[in-house]
């Protein structure tokens, strides 16, 4: 009996196309001579938004990890809430105050996002005051994927470096999230509006390259001043301490060399910067060049310059670029993904995919870890979201291609187990690297994560755990490395974690006998067990100890932003 096909008498299969045409017509009508082809006069941006947006639209406003469509964000805040309201915002990062202002004036109501770092406290207040309805908090790759399933933007407000008369866009080094957003919007009958820093008139000059073809772009507007880009991945080597150098020595010797890690991703932080700066010195002394760290999925970290110059690095693919690295990248196109014009081509969606499936190791830091190995950067009174870390800090269950590191980790995890859990397969190395005490003597190891309290406060379905304990393979602190892959019981896991939790309450409550046993079995390894004398852990081991050393290492090609130039 055929299933009644309710929409049989549906008259029209191209309602989206019609709706799109109506919006474009409304824009042409509203702007008149202030619209020349696709180019909108800067002061007509408000009229453009009010003409193209409709209440309840799902809108993606580019708040990337670094690049911000700040001009369009300010314009959106000023639209008439009577005409444009109850928008459903979908965006990677809530980086600017304007990103939350639109919820306070009623222009927007619902939100799906990934990371809200600086705005975490204000977001929590707006949520508890019922001014924002959160759809869900995603990692970047999940959100981009949902753009192609059930969170497809109707209107995309993006940022690019330059556009030509036809509307081709050059997004420059910080392409970041733009490709995924524009593709989802343009091919679903949506409207793409791009703010640009430069309009290139096709007669005399042309774009360095075309990153987004004109066919995918409906409107282009020149912003009064260049869009905001935050240098998030710059760490001043002068702030790296001797304890971080000690931990970096252990990471290189006890994990990278131990597993032969060739493809990896580094989270941002001084701990990982210390590892990058120890490769050409400490790594060299162990004869590891060529044996580890040849292929990277990470932004152009200035701290990686000495390792690149010493021939350690074969390839780097990036989520986004880093201010000041432009000339260096151009001169090192063998290593970085660059266009024919020489500037970087970053792509957050592809780099997140590479970090998840192509890399053998993720290493990052955290604020708190519990006795199951769960960790979180959630802090009370703030909703900060996840960003990219959980995607890379997880075992890619779908992976099938083998590598030495992946196989070794899998073998260590499964030896001696039976049944499904014992079936041979590989495993992603997920390393949590943290000093036992953070500043102000806050312990990094706790019995119960704040994430549980935050779940109750914000009414979340799950506690916002950043990296789950059963994905963590190693915990690295100044006291040593705990290899959770080799643990065969929850009790062993707990003591392995307590065994590296130092003098925190969690560490002091260790079962000393059991910890010694775990050390005998190599599950816990102290610096001495890896031939490392903590007194050798001095800043002299760093291949660069100041921003100027990095500029020197780059032969003057790296030009740090003003706030980092101490000379």
């Amino acid at each position, binding site marked *: 009996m055929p299933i009644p096909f309710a929409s049989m008498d549906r008259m029209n299969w191209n309602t989206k196309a019609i709706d799109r045409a109506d919006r474009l017509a409304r824009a042409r009508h509203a702007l008149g001579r202030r619209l020349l082809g696709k180019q909108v006069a800067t002061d007509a941006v408000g009229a453009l938004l009010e003409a193209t947006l409709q209440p309840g639209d799902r809108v993606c406003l580019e708040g990337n990890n670094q690049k911000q469509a700040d001009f369009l964000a300010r314009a959106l805040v000023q639209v008439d809430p009577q005409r444009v309201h109850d928008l459903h915002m979908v965006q990677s990062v809530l980086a600017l105050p304007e990103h939350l202002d639109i919820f306070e004036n009623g222009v927007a109501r619902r939100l799906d996002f990934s990371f809200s770092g600086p705005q975490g406290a204000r977001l929590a207040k707006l949520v508890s005051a019922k001014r924002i309805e959160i759809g869900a908090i995603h990692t970047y790759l999940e959100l981009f994927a949902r753009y192609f399933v059930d969170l497809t933007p109707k209107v995309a407000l993006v940022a690019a470096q330059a556009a030509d008369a036809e509307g081709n866009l050059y997004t420059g080094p910080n392409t970041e999230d733009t490709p995924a957003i524009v593709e989802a919007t343009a091919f679903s009958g949506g409207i793409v509006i791009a703010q640009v820093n430069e309009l290139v008139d096709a007669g005399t000059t042309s774009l360095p390259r075309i990153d987004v073809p004109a066919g995918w772009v409906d409107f282009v507007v020149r912003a009064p001043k260049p869009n905001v880009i935050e240098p998030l991945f710059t760490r001043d080597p002068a702030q790296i*301490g*001797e*304890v971080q150098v*000690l931990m970096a020595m252990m990471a290189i010797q006890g994990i990278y060399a131990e597993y032969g890690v060739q493809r990896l991703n580094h989270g941002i932080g001084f701990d990982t910067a210390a590892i990058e700066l120890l490769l050409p010195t400490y790594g060299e002394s162990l004869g590891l060049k060529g044996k580890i760290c040849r292929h990277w999925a990470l932004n152009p970290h200035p701290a990686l310059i000495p390792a690149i110059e010493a021939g350690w690095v074969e390839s780097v693919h990036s989520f986004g670029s880093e201010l000041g690295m432009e000339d260096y990248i151009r001169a090192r196109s063998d290593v970085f993904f660059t266009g024919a014009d020489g500037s970087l081509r970053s792509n957050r969606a592809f780099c997140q995919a590479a970090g998840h499936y192509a890399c053998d190791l993720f290493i990052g830091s955290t604020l708190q870890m519990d006795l199951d190995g769960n960790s979180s950067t959630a802090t009370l009174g703030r909703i900060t979201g996840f960003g990219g870390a959980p995607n890379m800090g997880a075992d890619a269950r779908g992976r099938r291609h083998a590598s030495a590191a992946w196989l070794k980790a899998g073998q260590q995890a499964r030896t001696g187990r039976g049944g499904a859990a014992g079936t041979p397969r590989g495993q992603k190395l997920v390393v949590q690297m943290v*000093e*036992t*005490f953070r*500043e*102000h*003597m806050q312990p990094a190891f706790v019995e119960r994560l704040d994430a549980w309290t935050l779940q109750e406060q914000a009414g979340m379905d799950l506690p916002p755990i950043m990296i789950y304990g059963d994905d963590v393979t190693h915990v690295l602190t*100044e*006291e040593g490395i705990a290899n959770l892959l080799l643990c065969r019981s929850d009790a062993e896991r707990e003591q392995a974690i307590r065994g590296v939790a*130092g*003098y925190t309450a969690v560490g*002091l409550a260790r079962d000393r006998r059991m910890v010694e046993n775990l050390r005998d079995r190599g599950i816990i390894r102290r610096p001495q067990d890896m031939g490392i004398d*903590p*007194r050798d*852990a001095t800043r002299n081991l760093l291949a660069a100890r100041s921003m100027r050393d990095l500029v020197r290492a780059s032969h003057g090609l790296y030009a740090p932003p003003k706030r980092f130039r101490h000379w």
Partner: protein
Amino acid sequence: MKDIAPGLETLEYVFPGERPAGDFAPVLAGVVGSGNLEVLVEPAPGSDCSIRIETSARGFGGIWEAVVRDFHARHPLAGVRVSINDMGATPAVVSLRLDQAVSELTP
């Protein structure tokens, strides 16, 4: 908010030494900067190892005791006086600094 001056916390520990340190020139390691400490090691009469700490990070006596106990286990020196001025150093930095100071003891 009690407005008496927060004041420093002073902690003292004494451990019976095993290995006589003999006579040596006093050794100073570290600097009293934020998150750091200075450690002065001097010869002392008798066979104990006495440790005196002045710190602006109040309320961590239990942790200090565990740290210095482990330090003495690593270096069971007899006839030494260790004096510390601390401005909120973590146990990792304290242990590193103590080991540095002891490694510079040259008779």
